[in-house]
């Protein structure tokens, strides 16, 4: 899985491309944690138009990052989910704590509010 990290102001945007499973989860966790340790970002956005598969291991790593960012007072969002991914996401009840947006721009407007 490809992972791209960049900043839009105080939002760390994590763009994933490929399949997020247990095998890919460790690398994602490490890269995002390392970036959050720099304390540049307050909020976190998972930008997922390129994510073609996710199982509950993916949910675990996303939730883990939510706990960290939320504990520090930040917000987390996800955008551009493929319908298969959104189905799993909804099943886990995630939209209540990590809102889903149609696009990166819509997400950024909301997170920075």
């Amino acid at each position, binding site marked *: 899985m490809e992972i791209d990290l960049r900043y839009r102001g105080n939002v760390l945007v994590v763009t994933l491309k490929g399949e997020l*499973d*247990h*095998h890919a989860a460790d690398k994602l966790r490490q890269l995002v944690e390392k970036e959050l340790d720099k304390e540049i970002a307050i909020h976190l956005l998972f930008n997922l138009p390129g994510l073609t*598969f996710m*199982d*509950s*291991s993916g*949910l*675990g790593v996303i939730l883990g990052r939510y706990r960290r960012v939320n504990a520090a007072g930040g917000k987390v969002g996800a955008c551009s989910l493929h319908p*298969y991914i959104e189905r799993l996401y909804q099943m886990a009840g995630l939209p209540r704590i990590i809102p889903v947006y149609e696009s990166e721009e819509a997400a950024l407007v909301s997170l920075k509010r």
Partner: protein
Amino acid sequence: MENWFELRLPALSQNEKFARTTAALFALQAGDWSLVEINEIKTAVSEAVTNAIIHGYHECCGEIIVSGTVAAGVVEFTISDAGQGIADVETARQPLFTTKPEHERSGLGFTVMENFMDEVEIDSTLGQGTKVKMTKYLLRKVQ
């Protein structure tokens, strides 16, 4: 047209993708699944294989057997390991329950399997291993 397969794999995380993709391809022989259904099969198999690696073998060193049978309108997969086994299957099936919260496990593996497949049977003995059998039926509206 009936068929079967059996795959023996080391319990390595890089085999999760291989196992679920193989299962999805095999399932196509049952008939004309929708893309959503194929994704459900892929995800359910991925969950079971991941469980065998993480919980059966604690991420190291063991063998997983992924097997499947298919006939018109139905596919069944069995994922077996000879690992730790499950102490209490009913508790393990509860949504969000996990024995490894420190590893950021969501505790949703069995919930996903049960939502995405039509039948899930778990057979486990502590110290000997676990076998998860999952079945999906291809249902179509009667014309």
